[in-house]
């Protein structure tokens, strides 16, 4: 078991190195003089030279790369031009907002997609199977910025059910004291149900928008792998032995069918991290995605580089966690190792 886990950890290393190399190359590929980009539009010649020395851009490429890696190891991602703050610090401050949204969206998507996929697989050709087919095809066709705006129009402007789709909290409320940075948890710790409810209401629309987008791959995979498992011999045997239908379905079929679904979660996370940028822009959500967009508009390169790197590293780590999870829930994997 430990051997398998160690193997997975080692397997993630090349990807991590790859992510670092690519983010390094991306900034060095800036057309013209990278130092001028990092110094900003209004910089004088001296300021540009200063940045050049500071970033080590006057040194050979290989040396630059090792300087970059050394900076990363010490948590130094550079300074944002627009705010004057260290990029790493700002990313960490904004990360909880994005995480809160992504995790809730994933939970919601799974809560809808798993039953839908299972029901569609147990009743092929029925209306629920058709519904599943429609949802999976429509879901991947939805531009998240469009669904977000439609939801905001319907539930805020027309029905008035949702709060103004701007930010994590209505300006009436002040945020809870920061412990985890996740408002729902912090508000619960602070013991303030009103605040909790206010934070929750703000989350509803962005979370539904994102969940609608990632529902499709989860439902599609659940249906396909349930169909495959339900057609296998051991299910026939279990049924023939007179086990209760729910036992067969949940204990025998679902547990086996979930394995491929867990593997697709990696891909789903990739979609979510990407679409969170767009959704954060739509809902004025102060997460890492809108931080990157602000930096893009201001041609502020250090935050963009930091953002791409952080997302890449986060994604590699998430995939590693999924791999480990897979090892834990599939007894066959530990036998092989």
């Amino acid at each position, binding site marked *: 078991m430990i051997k398998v886990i160690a193997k997975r950890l080692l397997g993630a290393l*090349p*990807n*991590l190195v*790859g*992510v670092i*190399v*690519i*983010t390094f190359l*991306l*900034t060095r*590929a*800036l*057309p013209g003089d990278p130092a001028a980009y990092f110094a900003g539009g209004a910089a004088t010649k001296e300021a540009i030279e200063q940045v050049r020395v500071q970033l080590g851009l006057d040194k050979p490429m290989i040396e630059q790369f090792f300087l970059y890696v050394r900076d990363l190891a010490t948590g130094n991602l550079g300074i944002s031009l627009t705010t004057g703050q260290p990029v790493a610090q700002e990313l960490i401050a904004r990360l909880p907002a994005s995480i809160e949204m992504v995790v809730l969206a994933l939970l919601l998507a799974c809560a809808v997609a798993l039953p839908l996929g299972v029901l569609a697989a147990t009743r092929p050709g029925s209306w629920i199977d058709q519904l599943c087919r429609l949802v999976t*095809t*429509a879901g*991947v*066709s*939805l*531009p*998240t*910025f*469009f669904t977000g*705006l*439609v939801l*905001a*129009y319907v539930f*805020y*402007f027309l029905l008035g059910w949702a709060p*103004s*789709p*701007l930010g994590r909290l209505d300006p009436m409320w002040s945020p809870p004291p920061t412990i985890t940075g996740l408002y729902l948890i912090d508000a619960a710790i602070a013991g303030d149900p009103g605040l909790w409810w206010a934070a929750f209401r703000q989350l509803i629309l962005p979370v539904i928008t994102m969940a609608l987008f990632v529902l499709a791959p989860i439902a*599609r995979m659940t*249906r*396909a792998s349930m169909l495959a498992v339900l057609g296998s011999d051991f299910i026939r045997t279990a049924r023939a032995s007179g086990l209760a239908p729910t036992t067969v379905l949940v204990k025998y079929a679902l547990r086996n069918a979930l394995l491929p679904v867990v593997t697709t979660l990696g891909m789903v*996370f*990739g*979609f*979510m*991290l*990407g*679409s969170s*940028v*767009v959704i954060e*822009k*739509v809902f004025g959500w102060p997460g890492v995605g809108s931080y*990157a*967009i602000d930096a*893009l*508009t201001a041609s502020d*390169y250090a935050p*963009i*580089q930091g*953002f*791409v790197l952080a*997302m*890449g590293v986060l*994604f*590699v780590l998430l*995939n590693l966690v999924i791999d480990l999870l897979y090892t834990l829930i599939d007894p066959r994997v530990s036998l092989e190792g």
Partner: protein
Amino acid sequence: MNDTLKHIRHVLSENPVTMVAAALFALFIVIALIGPALVPYDPLASNATAALQPPSAAHWFGTDALGRDIFSRTMVATRLDLGIAISAVLLSFALGIALGLAAGFFGGWWDTLITRTSDTIMAFPLFVLAMGIVAALGNTVGNIVLATAIINLPFYIRVARAEANVRRGAGFIEAARLSGNGDVRILAVHLFPNILPPAMVQVSLNMGWAILNAAGLSFIGLGVRPPTPEWGILVAEGAQFIVSGEWWVSFFPGAVLMLAVFTFNLLGDALRDIFDPRRRT
């Protein structure tokens, strides 16, 4: 051949939606080709007296904050959006197939290098990587195409590499080599036709995604610049009016974008059923 036709007819008759998708696809192509000549208004002409008007007989999709006709802008945008998606997919098709074939056929160092690069691309959330590429290379339409092509590359490399790997020892390849064909000719003439069906399926599945991706990038302000009409930008321009109830500014371009992606995804599913019945889900 007759069997193939029968199979195609079977796939089409089993799912009538495919016919609708094919019709929509034809419509989009026609609009992309001759749309700019058909639209009732100049997509860039502003008219302050007719700003933010709801849909009417004169302006089917209404007008935006500058009084520009949204119907005309949405129609004209079709060419640019489809153009970006098609060139990006073609670029990753050509490059990915060539790299994947070389990796699978030659093996060794080539294989390690190409597979590693493709794995590294996949190690990023792809939309984020596209953002980084466009931000680094410069904010132009050409770079949107390039970024979209790069993030699609691994899918083609995988398809081509897998097929080339399986077939490189096959009898017909040995025969071709004995008849005096060089490596390049074997790859192009003997292996390439074999990977065409799975690669075509990938193309059709990628198209919708490429449109979404390009529109998403311009929605957050990358690539295409206003006032050029493009679906992502049109939606972004209307976003601020949603909370005050002027829904049509964003709604129509967004709905057309969604319809285009939906069309391509439905067609992709149908093509996959035709080319590769085993992968149906």
